[in-house]
């Protein structure tokens, strides 16, 4: 039965002989581990396509909505955080493997006649890979995405002659970017680049098959070997290795989501993705009218140079050990890239921006509500009112209490544990909280860590809200405290409590002398509240 089905399929489609032809193609005797990168790059592209499609299923492609949907993917969709991390790190690792593939081809001289077109196709594929990185960078629509892309569009505007047209094509109005740039980057990322890449990969693979894998000089004297099983096994092992690294990174290395794109956030210092950092550093060398040289002319010449390599180096094939020129050039390029990248990393200020995908509801409610949660815990109300469950007392998380305020206050005071623990003012606040809490506050009620609650209790006890606003509640005599931890470091905030004018000249805030534990708790709490 199975045999007949196979025969039928083979007769009508020729699929079996096509697969056999593919697998048993003869490759040079010298083929081996150094030639696995092409297969790995193809696999990397497939991983990017799969994870990209999955992300797109929960992604709304428009400014603001894009940010909210990425946050939704990261915080609510099952495995959403992992999926985004796979796509993010997959992009980086794809660039690594594409560059390794290119370096191998270069060092071995595999671009030589008759494989010039294969090489040019490869250079174009590298450019497409970088274009994917550049266009995808904007799509989360956070500050990093926004400011990074402002720089990208401004660089394109520098191109001699075509600059203004190019900038317009990217939807930039000269200084800022908005919905049009976003839409064009999105269309490029998901509608233009993928089919173009598939087409070029097909052409590239066809050319590799047409000319065969590049042989080493003495290969003609040795018998050829089939692609399957030896080379297929090596490719597969390399793919597994690459995927293991990707999975490890996706699980262990967090991909943050910053604050939503804010053109008025002047504190944000943009930095490009690591593989473009060398260009970023390179640009610092070109001052005034020369900036176009560093930003556009030299990179274009470098790309042209890459494309023209097979026409410049036209000598006979040599064994890799004798290709000193190529090895030297590749080493120089690596030193140039590495040095510039290291310098850029060294001059990057430490970012204190909060990862907004990790912000919990307790970080977004008022200090008063947090303190009320503290009163509830202090008076051990939870021994009768189990949150989320029915027990001796009703489950208070189901709905806000409809009892009158006086009844609630009396009820709280009748609890012997509350009697000594809470002041009248605190009982009143707890009664209001029970009757009017928000959904966010309910989550905080159940999940807020005790040290944060204690920090809020100290905040409330010292009446910080009479001068400072926090999460929308409080006076505006002093600066709002949201994002204080992103503006200042811990030692600044702790020092500021003891001696405000020393840290903010002209400050009228009175000094606060906290015990070491209290100082730690209130500083932790304030630093945890996002901008």
């Amino acid at each position: 039965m199975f045999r007949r089905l196979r025969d039928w399929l083979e007769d009508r489609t020729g699929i079996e002989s096509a697969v056999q032809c593919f697998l048993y193609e003869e490759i040079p005797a010298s083929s081996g581990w150094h030639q696995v990168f092409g297969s790995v790059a193809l696999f990397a592209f497939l991983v990017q396509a799969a994870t990209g499609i999955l992300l797109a299923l929960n992604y709304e492609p428009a400014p603001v909505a894009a940010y909210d949907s990425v946050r939704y993917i990261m915080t609510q969709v099952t495995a959403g955080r992992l999926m985004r991390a796979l796509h993010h790190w997959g992009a980086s690792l794809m660039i690594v493997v594409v560059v390794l593939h290119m370096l191998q081809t270069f060092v071995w001289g595999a671009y030589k006649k008759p494989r010039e077109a294969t090489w040019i196709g490869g250079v174009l594929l590298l450019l497409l890979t970088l274009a994917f990185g550049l266009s995808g960078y904007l799509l989360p629509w956070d500050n990093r995405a926004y400011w990074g892309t402002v720089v990208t569009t401004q660089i394109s505007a520098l191109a001699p002659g075509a600059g203004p047209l190019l900038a317009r094509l990217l939807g930039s109005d000269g200084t800022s970017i908005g919905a049009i740039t976003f839409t064009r980057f999105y269309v490029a990322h998901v509608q233009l680049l993928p089919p173009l890449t598939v087409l070029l990969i097909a052409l590239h693979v066809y050319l590799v098959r047409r000319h065969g894998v590049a042989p080493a000089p003495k290969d003609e004297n040795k018998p050829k070997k089939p692609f399957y099983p030896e080379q297929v096994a090596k490719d597969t092992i390399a793919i597994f290795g690459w995927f293991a690294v990707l999975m490890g990174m996706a699980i262990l290395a967090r991909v943050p989501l910053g604050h939503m794109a804010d053109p008025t956030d002047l504190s944000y210092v943009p930095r490009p993705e690591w593989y473009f950092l060398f260009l970023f550093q390179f640009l610092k060398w070109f001052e005034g009218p020369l900036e176009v040289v560093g930003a556009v002319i030299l990179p274009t010449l470098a790309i042209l140079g890459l494309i023209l390599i097979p026409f410049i180096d036209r000598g006979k094939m040599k064994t890799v050990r004798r290709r000193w020129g190529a090895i030297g050039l590749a080493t120089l390029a690596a030193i140039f890239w590495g040095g510039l990248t290291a310098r850029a990393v060294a001059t990057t200020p430490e970012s204190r921006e909060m990862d907004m995908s990790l912000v919990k509801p307790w970080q977004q409610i008022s200090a008063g509500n947090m303190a009320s949660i503290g009163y509830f815990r202090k008076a051990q109300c939870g021994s009768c009112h189990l949150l989320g469950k029915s027990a001796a007392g009703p489950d208070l998380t189901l709905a806000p209490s409809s009892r009158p305020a006086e009844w609630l206050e009396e009820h709280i005071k009748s609890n012997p544990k509350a009697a000594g623990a809470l002041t009248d003012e605190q009982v009143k606040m707890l009664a209001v909280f029970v009757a009017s809490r928000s959904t966010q506050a309910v989550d905080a009620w159940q999940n807020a860590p005790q040290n944060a609650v204690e920090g809020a209790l100290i905040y409330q006890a010292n009446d910080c809200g009479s001068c400072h606003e926090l999460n929308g509640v409080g006076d505006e005599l002093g600066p709002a405290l949201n994002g204080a931890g992103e503006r200042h470091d811990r030692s600044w905030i702790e020092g500021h409590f003891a001696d405000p004018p020393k840290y903010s000249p002209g400050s009228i805030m009175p000094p606060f002398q906290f015990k070491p534990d209290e100082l730690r708790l209130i500083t932790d709490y304030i630093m945890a509240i996002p901008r």
Partner: protein
Amino acid sequence: MSMALAAPAAAYLLVANDSKRRDNLVEAAKLTQLKIGKPQEVSFERTRVDGWRKFQEKAIAWVVRTGENDVVAYSPQCTHLGCAYHWEESGNQFVCPCHGSRFSIDGTVLEGPASRPLDRYPVHVENSKLLIGSEIQKA
């Protein structure tokens, strides 16, 4: 046939839209809030047309009061590649954290890679109030 498609396609993508923007001046600060010779970050509301969206948004300007009734307002982005720069009190200059361009208090370039002085917003002083327009003017 291909020209008939390509020409409008090129125009569709490359020709600037016909959006006639009137430059409304809006109140940004009282002159008394600005110290002479000291740059200050001032925020103001402006109407922004972003493709098919039109909305009010907060904008920022670096404002320097240069005399009793004279004020300049700089666009807060570096003229090199558009990063946000800041005022460095100690060096008495604007510094861009991206590629290290430096500008003097009058907006001129002190150190590259920027090649142009800081861009400005149109300003108008009326009844001791500073009004700022949103159309950025290249110096």
